[in-house]
């Protein structure tokens, strides 16, 4: 009993101490927050602008540059938020995210939030055109020039046999959130390849890097703009040209190349009233694939911090930055079905 009662006593003491500490910290916090609010009351409070960073480096490149300009020239605080593509839509609709500067397709979400309930605004084109397709390392194309087209791949499928897919060849697909028709394509075009889904872009990139260093054959789903294309040299395999008729086919019967993706920006519908200058900037923001890749490259390969890479870009592209601050909105283009 004595041990037990002493335990109870100590438990009580702990609760009392804990209570005292908690009260103390709450009081301190109250002091802290009141002092900070009184100091900020002298300036006009500006809402924090939240930009979504998706799981590819280009998306971060857009954001660090936008953050730099918005903070330096428009004096709004900016927060970059890592978020998966799908949650980014309801978050932009709800206003917890201000804008997404690079959207690939997302026809269905566009119908729900932009066309449907108007909670999200199409902020115009970003500039680069997303080019999805089949790629091989350039050293492989040099050794096998026929691989420039899908017919060549069809003839040379044996090059790509791996233990994973044996006796078939392997076609390496990437992040599951990206739209792919590759399983349909290999079957409709009658190519003896089996699609392996890497499950994440990191896994796909590691696999490509390993093959590249050993100069082994590999064929994979890839896209531009992507800074990785400046680290390694890839060549695109020509697929049957994209047609509207083909896009309307059921997913399993698609037999043509991917449509061009006109990358676009979206923002919360209330942003033009809560932060008009920022809304104007986001609508005017546009650059080229090369611009984006240079910033990505500086961060990923040269290991510059986001702010340093942005500063470097902004300082060498003053007139472009001025056109974002004073220019007119970029043209709009809604995503098409199947993207």
């Amino acid at each position, binding site marked *: 009993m004595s*041990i*037990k009662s*002493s*335990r*109870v*006593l*100590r*438990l009580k003491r*702990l609760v009392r101490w804990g209570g005292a500490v908690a009260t103390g*910290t709450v009081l*301190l*916090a109250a002091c*802290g*927050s009141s002092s900070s609010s009184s100091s900020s009351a002298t300036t006009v409070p500006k809402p924090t602008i939240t930009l*979504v*960073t998706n*799981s*590819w*480096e280009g998306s*971060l490149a857009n954001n660090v540059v936008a953050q730099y300009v918005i903070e330096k020239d428009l004096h709004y605080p900016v927060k970059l*938020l*890592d*978020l*998966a*593509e*799908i*949650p980014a839509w*309801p*978050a932009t*609709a*709800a206003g*917890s*995210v201000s804008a997404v500067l690079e959207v690939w397709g997302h026809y269905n*979400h566009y119908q729900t939030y932009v066309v449907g309930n108007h*909670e999200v605004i199409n902020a115009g084109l970003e500039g680069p055109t997303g080019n999805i397709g089949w790629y091989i390392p350039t050293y492989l194309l040099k050794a096998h020039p026929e691989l420039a087209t899908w017919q060549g791949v069809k003839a040379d499928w044996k090059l790509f046999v*791996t*233990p*994973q897919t*044996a006796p078939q060849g392997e076609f*390496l697909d990437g992040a*599951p*959130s*990206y*739209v792919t028709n590759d399983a349909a394509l290999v079957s409709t075009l009658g190519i003896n390849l089996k699609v*392996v*889904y*890497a*499950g*994440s*872009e*990191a*896994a*796909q990139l*590691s*696999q490509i*890097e*390993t093959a590249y260093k*050993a100069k082994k054959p590999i064929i994979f789903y890839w896209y531009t703009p992507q800074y990785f294309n400046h680290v390694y040299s890839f060549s695109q395999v020509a697929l049957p040209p994209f047609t509207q008729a083909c896009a309307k086919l059921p997913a399993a019967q698609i037999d043509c190349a991917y449509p061009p993706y006109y990358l676009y920006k979206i923002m919360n519908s209330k942003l033009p009233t809560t932060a008009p200058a920022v809304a104007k900037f986001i609508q005017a923001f546009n650059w080229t694939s090369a611009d984006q890749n240079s910033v990505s490259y500086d*961060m*990923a390969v040269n290991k510059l911090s986001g702010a340093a890479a942005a500063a470097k870009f902004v300082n060498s592209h003053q007139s472009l930055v001025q056109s974002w601050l004073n220019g007119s909105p970029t043209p709009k283009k809604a995503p098409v079905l199947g993207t």
Partner: protein
Amino acid sequence: MTMLAEPNEQVELAAKPELPSDRRTTKLKVSKLAKAPWSGLFVLFLAIVISAIYSGFSSGFPTSWVPNITTWFNSLANWITIHQNTAPFFVHFLTPIGNWLGNSVNALTNLLNWLSWPGVIAVFAGTAVLAGKWRVGIFVVIAMIYFGVIGLWSASMSTLALMSVAVLISVVLGVPLGIAAASSRVVEEAIRPVLDLMQMLPAYAYLVPIVLLFGIGNSGGIIATVIYAIAPVIRLTMLGIHSVPYETVEAGKSFGSDRWQLLRKVQLPLALKPIVLGINQVIMMALSVVVIASLVGTGGLGDPILQALNIVDVGDALTAGVAIVLMAMILDRIVSAVAENVGRNVSTKGQRVLISPRNLRILVGGLVIAAILLGHLIGGGGTFPSGLSLSLSNPVNTFLSFLQRHLYHFSSIPIVGGTSNLSSFTTLEILNPLTRILGDIPWWLAIFGTGVIGYLVAGWRRAVLVCVGVAAIGVLGMWTDASVTLAQVLVALVMCVAIGIPLGICAYWWPPLEKVLRPILDILQTMPAFVYLIPVVLFFSVGNMAGVAASFVYALAPAVRLTNLGLRQIKVDMIEAGNSFGATRFQMLRKVELPAARSTIILAVNQTIMLVLAEVIVAGLVGAGGLGYDVVVGLGRDEFGLGLSAGLAIVVLGIVFDRLTQGRPAGRRG
């Protein structure tokens, strides 16, 4: 590091209260079989044969029997999407809860920033010192300086705030739930399957609806974390209260305590130790979803890992991963230290003290205030000076490519070949054929076979349960993908057992090995799997072998630890008896030690399977396909239904395996 292992081991043991002591094990007893009630099994057999004939003995699960569950889930998600800003239940109930939680995390983050980095370090180290743990205090100081030196101080503080609130909510909800479950059989039976579901359903599968209902950022992140991490504290509170000796409770009653007094003065204080173990386990589980929470915008230490993955920079990912491991250790040790201090007997305290407790408190208080003042003097908004940034990126990446160059290719290692060879061999000779065989087993035979195994090892009630489970995988429409996953789970399990159990035995024979293994196993278990996602691909190529490798790394720990623990727990007199008969070391192992440690080793297998299944998602991220990939696609491509169906199939697989490896249930739980 050593302290981390101790509670874990006990939790692993304690978390399975149903596991019998020694008698009721999975060993097949022929004499028992002869007396068995075959009638139950016969009915089962008949039911399966009839349905097999009905389906025309098809080998794949009959598609016409798969209801459109995926579509139902999808329309549910669509309904939520449409109504998230209009339905009163969402707008006036769920959204405010989400906002309140999010705001409390933000408030705590602000408080931590206000304390400034010297202040935070002083508060945490001071708590440890006040609890009488100087060494923990020193560890906390070093670990927290690491957060600053790698340039992730503010990210660490957001994660710390999120974790603290998540753990607090888990305790505030979990302890009463555990008490309720301990005092009512009905509540207990109702709560058990829910706990299984919460613990085994991959968080990936329900992120989208959580974001729709509670919003992104800390609001959604905290809900996802609590759902995943709350189960252990409920289970262990339940266990703790159950384990209070009957006589003690009776004594309390005889003194005239009412139910509330009994709970407060007798049961809770005596159940404190298991409850604290439960809290420690909550901390570990909560920290294991930090990276996943970052996918819904919580920020914190998950962000640098996700960003490092985008640029295939293992060094950067590891730098942040180590911070997560350290965070887990800090919280774990402080909670343990404080709890130990509370539970300690007063009379043994106070020996050999340099400073009286009162003076120590004044000293620590003074130091904290001084540290806060110092932090404010330095300025910089409370974050660590950025000039000191250190990165492991370069050395780690250089080392990794060195390793890959020398281990991957054919000629790297004599006779065996490189890891690429190992990977091709396992894929071609083991994984691919096994996947094919499992996929080709007629569904009715699979159900019947599982039923027979279930009957033999765990009695016929469990046999019915596992049959229903296997059938449910078919009904969920996951038959083929489940066979892909199952093949990998089995291979990973065999690898863990084949390497883990001998390692555990070696560490028992030669204790210094155990000292070396402990920190390594701790790190393997707390390191976010996202960190070693790239290395497994570098060594084993995208595919099912990469998935197996990732699962192996993560699930090795319990096999080693529990084998070791089981052997160490053998009573001395048993070993003495063996020695006096002149048994050799191997005879001893085979005839005395392994049989005595059998139940713990079976538990090791059980825990290994659970961890392998928890890693199925990561396998999906490195190209292993199967259920894990479906769950990842569910989140990535807005196919909530597919993700949830696959997630549920993982849960069902887990329950089937768990029930099969738990052995014969004790009386009432059959």
